[in-house]
């Protein structure tokens, strides 16, 4: 058989973005908040989970994207946030309700899991301590006290399932797990499939609810929560480091350029490259892979026109890995988690969205949270390099460019 010429890589555009965070809903609200005063960008809840603090998502009118009350009842907060943000992205791309497009739209969702019944957990733990037959007690209480439908709010793939049901995205449905890395790989695989003509239009993203004691608990197991007075992520490692979690829903519509042009859709930005790796974080391996991934991107960078949108978490070791990369390269950096909070699986899709916002406006947001570690950027921004160094594992990078 004759060797076929590989098809040239197709250009992939971001044609829709849905973003909800503590700063607002949609890119315009985010732009305004980042550029505003401290009250605009710092919306911290220090009371509900004290001594822990979270960046709660702004109030949303869920019914606007999830009109059916029955649907809303079947979801917990992270699913509502994600389904809502996915709807915003579909609206933004102009494909909401367009069944012809939606039935061939491929979905990759980065998700954790979730949601406990906190009251039931507390009662059972108390009862277990008092019981002479704890295993029997547990069986009986679980059978009696668990809400049957809570299971559907706990399954990782049910965010995608809800998006299929509410918005009709049914071309395919895959859910990636694995904290920050899941968010990077969801975008990476969607882009690779788009480049290789394994689908023309993709819905990719994730959602994270920080307003949950069990997610805060997960970080507390490793003593990774920042419970001192708020400070930008770069300032935290010198004082022990830590994250403040944030509720974020972030979805992107990624589309082959020709597919977008055919239906008259306008690009917000071009998604050029996403790479990812997993190292053991020993012997400089993580620093090495970040440098290798940077070097794959850097030949195409236009001098002085790039901003780094960093996924820095505030956790000491992870921040050190990223500083090793950034300190040698001196590119203006914006660590969005300083004010959005760390949103784990949703962080990378959200930062791709914010990178797209900056290149489409041709301007960077000011140093996030007034961080002295972030240089001013007054020149025209044409490219955004999005970084992700997971709080424990996973190193990834993406390049978003102005069209």
């Amino acid at each position: 058989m004759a060797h076929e010429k590989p098809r040239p890589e197709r250009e992939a555009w971001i044609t829709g973005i849905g973003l909800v965070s503590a700063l607002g809903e949609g890119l315009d609200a985010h732009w305004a908040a980042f550029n505003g005063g401290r009250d605009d960008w710092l919306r911290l809840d220090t009371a509900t989970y004290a001594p822990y603090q979270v960046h709660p998502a702004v109030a949303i009118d869920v019914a606007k994207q999830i009109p059916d009350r029955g649907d809303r009842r079947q979801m917990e907060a992270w699913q509502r946030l994600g389904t809502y943000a996915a709807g915003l992205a579909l609206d933004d791309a102009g494909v909401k309700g367009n069944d012809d497009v939606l039935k061939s739209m491929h979905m990759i969702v980065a998700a954790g899991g979730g949601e406990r019944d906190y009251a039931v957990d507390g009662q059972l733990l108390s009862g277990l301590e008092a019981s002479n037959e704890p295993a029997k007690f547990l069986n009986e209480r679980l059978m009696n006290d668990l809400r049957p439908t809570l299971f559907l709010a706990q399954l990782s793939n049910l965010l995608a399932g809800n998006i299929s049901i509410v918005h009709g995205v049914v071309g395919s449905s895959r859910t990636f797990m694995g904290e920050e890395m899941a968010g990077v790989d969801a975008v990476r695989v969607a882009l690779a499939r788009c480049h290789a003509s394994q689908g023309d239009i993709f819905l990719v993203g994730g959602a994270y609810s920080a307003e949950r004691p069990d997610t805060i608990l997960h970080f507390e197991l490793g003593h990774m929560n920042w419970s001192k007075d708020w400070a930008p992520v770069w300032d935290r490692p010198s004082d022990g480091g830590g994250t403040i979690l944030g509720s974020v829903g972030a979805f992107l519509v990624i589309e082959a350029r020709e597919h977008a042009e055919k239906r008259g859709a306008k690009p917000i930005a071009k998604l050029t490259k996403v790479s990812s790796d997993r190292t053991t974080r020993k012997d400089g391996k993580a620093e090495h892979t970040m440098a290798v991934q940077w070097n794959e991107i850097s030949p195409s960078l236009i001098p002085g026109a790039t901003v780094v949108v960093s996924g820095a978490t505030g956790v000491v070791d992870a921040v050190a890995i990223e500083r090793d990369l950034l300190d040698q390269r001196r590119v203006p950096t914006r660590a969005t988690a300083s004010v959005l909070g760390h949103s784990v699986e949703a962080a990378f899709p959200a930062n791709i969205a914010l990178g797209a916002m900056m290149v489409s406006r041709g301007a960077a947001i000011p140093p996030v949270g007034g961080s002295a570690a972030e240089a001013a950027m007054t020149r025209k921004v044409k490219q955004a390099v999005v970084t992700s160094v997971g709080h424990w594992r996973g190193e990834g990078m993406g390049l978003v460019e102005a069209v």
Partner: protein
Amino acid sequence: MASMKDRHGRPVVVVTGMGVVTSLGQGKDENWTKLTAGQSGIHTISRFPIDGLRTTIAGTVDFVPFENAPDLTTKMAALAGDEAVAEAGIGDAGSFPGPLFLGMPPVELEWPQRQDLARASGKAADITYADILKGAAARDFGAMQKRFLFGSVGDELSDRFGTKGAPISISTACATGATAIQLAVEAIRRGETEAALVIGADGSANQESLVRFSLLSALSTRNGDPTAAARPFSKDRDGFVMAEGAGALVLESYDHAKARGATILGVVEGCGEMADSFHRTRSSPDGAPIIGCIRNALDDAGVTAADVQYVNAHGTSTPENDKMEYVGLAAVFGDHLANVAVSSNKSMIGHTLSAAGAIEAVFTLMTIRNGVIPPTINHTEADPAIKMDLVPNKAREAKVTRAISNSFGFGGQNVCLVLAAEPA
């Protein structure tokens, strides 16, 4: 050497190594012997007390010592992966030349961990999450944190097998194992890698998981006779039986496998998918997504229903699934369905959930390779609404060159794989 392309001009994806763990035992040989003898691995649960439970049976894997669900998932995945990589004879020890695609259940803290945290808080009554958080802050629970990260199962397996790049951990409910295969096939087809290690593993049959399925009325309550509980497609089926296990496959491009002289165990010709937007746990009444998913798989393989001799059914033994799967197969296969053998491995191994798609792909390829179709056991009462050759109760010798394997899951997940013998 000429490059082998499929009907769409893409690299042909072949299987060169397989491994399996189920409640029937460890390894392909033991599993195949028992599967073709019509033996069931379902038993009364001994892992935890069963007082007060509505369902007291499962296909747990009891011969692998473990500490918690992610630990058991990791260990079974490692056993199946070891068998697959050894059979493929690929790479150097601890260095697999490609990425890992891992299908696995969602990870969550379990009751023993919550109890440890509550105790660390010093409180024994009126415990709240504020107390649990205090307990977590009081001591170093770093090891617990890592174990219960979603990424830690893939992380351990990446180190064990030396796979390349970031492992992809997948959850598409009961279609998870098939989705993992699908993602690997796509990666090889687009030339991103020449080889991939796919593992589907599930070791999550703990008390709370069982109760959750029980509360959705999804499980069989035929507790008195465990081996007779899973009875897919029978009139008196009453639910699925929760089970554990792992399946592993080494996938390669045909060219890569041939160049290194590997034995080709079979071909993954096609993958099809179509999500269902009807309901979180139920299929569209018209079966359209199931039909579309199977048709997409056949189109992807470049074949028609007439080219298929065997269906490894999803066949969970729930009233709903089996009815809808029949509706779907009848629509796609039409009159040809009378000539097609359909059986459900789940009648013997139960529903291995996140592992099912991978385990059943392994068994489907063994069916093709060995010319023996494992039966659907416990078939004593036919459902008049389901007219298929279910290979009832006894294995059958038959020449099978091409089969499909179905996987359907909560959340509208539908995946179908087309698997075939090595091209002559």
